[in-house]
């Protein structure tokens, strides 16, 4: 069984830092994971002093397999992961400004998982997280891809690889939020896309299986073809593909640049998603923040954020109300007894 080799990436060079940029980690670690290394190469990203990682990253020159893969992530057990928006402060983020790069993260190898990473691209017509064609074993999960609105980010997340899974991500301010325009089957589940020209771009070959996606504030929510398995997508026009599509939604978020659903005004998307707990292509159970969506049979929300946790504020309020009434009744009873 392959050994996990974990290296710490921290632009602030806090205690235990191995590399101060993801790019340096990649340069140092690239090689054959399948041979004598028999390794899962893990980049655990931190931000102990508030500094962004500013070097664009290319993953290339590796040899991987499905069990000897590359994992780039922020560990949710630590405090350096975003909270559903492009972060500031002590949250790890990649911010690329200028230069000739066409991406923030460019993946040219199979078997790469990018989890819980926030990226922002200031370079005109460049991508957030991009993959070359025909890779396998690609997962991008719980990430934030953000244009800064000053220059136009081209594609937030590119999904063009066979079997690629794009799940629980938030993309904002791009020409295309999620770009799936290629022939290989790929799975785009429970993402939220806001403030883009096109939310999710499919392909004439109908390769993209889009489920439970939430697209808002776009010129066109969904464009080109999607696979017939697509279901429970919502958009702010009438282009949402597949069965149980929700058209012309009005949704309310807690902020202009996040995917966190507000407490009110979201009846169209809360509890209206397909439950993917047993999905044949990619079964999962949590949302962008790691909140449990519930297992088989549970009611899921559309988009990257699951309102179940926040809904806790509603249910306890009802319970509190009942409790207060009960206390009042008992107080009245006791008062009458003494009287």
């Amino acid at each position: 069984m392959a050994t996990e080799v974990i290296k710490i990436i921290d632009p602030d060079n806090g205690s235990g830092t191995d590399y101060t940029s993801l790019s340096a980690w990649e340069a140092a670690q690239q090689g054959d994971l399948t041979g004598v290394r028999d390794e899962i190469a893990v980049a655990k990203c931190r931000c102990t002093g508030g500094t962004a990682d500013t070097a664009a990253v290319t993953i290339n020159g590796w040899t991987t397999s499905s069990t000897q893969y590359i994992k780039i992530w922020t560990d949710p057990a630590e405090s350096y992961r975003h909270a559903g928006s492009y972060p500031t402060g002590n949250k790890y983020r990649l911010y690329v400004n200028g230069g000739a790069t066409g991406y923030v993260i460019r993946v040219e190898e199979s078997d790469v998982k990018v989890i819980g990473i926030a990226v922002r691209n200031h370079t005109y017509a460049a991508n957030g997280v991009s993959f070359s064609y025909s890779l396998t074993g690609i997962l991008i999960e719980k990430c934030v891809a953000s244009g800064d609105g000053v220059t136009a980010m081209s594609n937030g997340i590119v999904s063009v690889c066979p079997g690629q899974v794009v799940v629980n991500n938030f993309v904002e301010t791009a020409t295309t939020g999620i770009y799936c325009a290629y022939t290989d089957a790929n799975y785009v589940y429970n993402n939220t896309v806001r403030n883009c020209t096109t939310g999710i771009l499919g392909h004439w070959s109908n390769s993209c299986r889009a489920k439970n996606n939430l697209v808002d504030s776009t010129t066109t929510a969904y464009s080109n073809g999607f696979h017939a398995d697509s279901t429970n997508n919502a958009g702010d026009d009438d282009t949402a593909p597949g069965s149980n599509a929700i058209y012309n939604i009005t949704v309310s978020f807690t902020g202009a640049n996040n995917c966190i659903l507000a407490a009110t005004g979201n009846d169209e998307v809360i509890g209206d998603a397909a439950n993917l707990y047993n999905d044949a292509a990619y079964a999962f159970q949590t949302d962008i923040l790691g909140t449990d969506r519930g297992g088989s049979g549970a009611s899921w929300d559309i988009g990257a954020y699951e309102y179940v946790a926040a809904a806790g504020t509603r249910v306890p309020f009802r319970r509190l109300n009942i409790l207060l009434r009960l206390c009042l009744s008992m107080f009245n009873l006791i008062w009458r007894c003494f009287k």
Partner: protein
Amino acid sequence: MAQILVKAVDATHADPTKDRRGCYKRGMPVVVMPDSHTWGREECLPKFVIIKIPGVSVDRVMKYLEQEREGTADAEGFYPIYRRRLWKFRFDDMPTAALKKLRDNGELTIKVGDYAGDYDYTWLQVKTYIRNLKTNEDETANL
């Protein structure tokens, strides 16, 4: 105010195309950071050396991170990488003293302009050891 993290050893791949496109080779710059940057515990020998160029802005040195790209875009509009870096420090052609300093200390300090602190070599001396791998010519520009 720049420091360049430079690969000190070759990475290799069995596929020659991947080896050229993907693998950093000895002498290829990886990232550029400001003078004040402190490096992580693995950003040093044996895998890296650091070229310090005090007083020169990061922006002026960023060009050495450029990748050599193919001339035709793919379907996504992306110009595929031909070689991991366009520029490379020719460490092995440097004078023995410079090479020894890199081997022993893992860094060289280069004087540019009015810099008055300690240094090992001047930019004028060093630039002729930085090669553009596309044109196969050494750097002639000043910083």
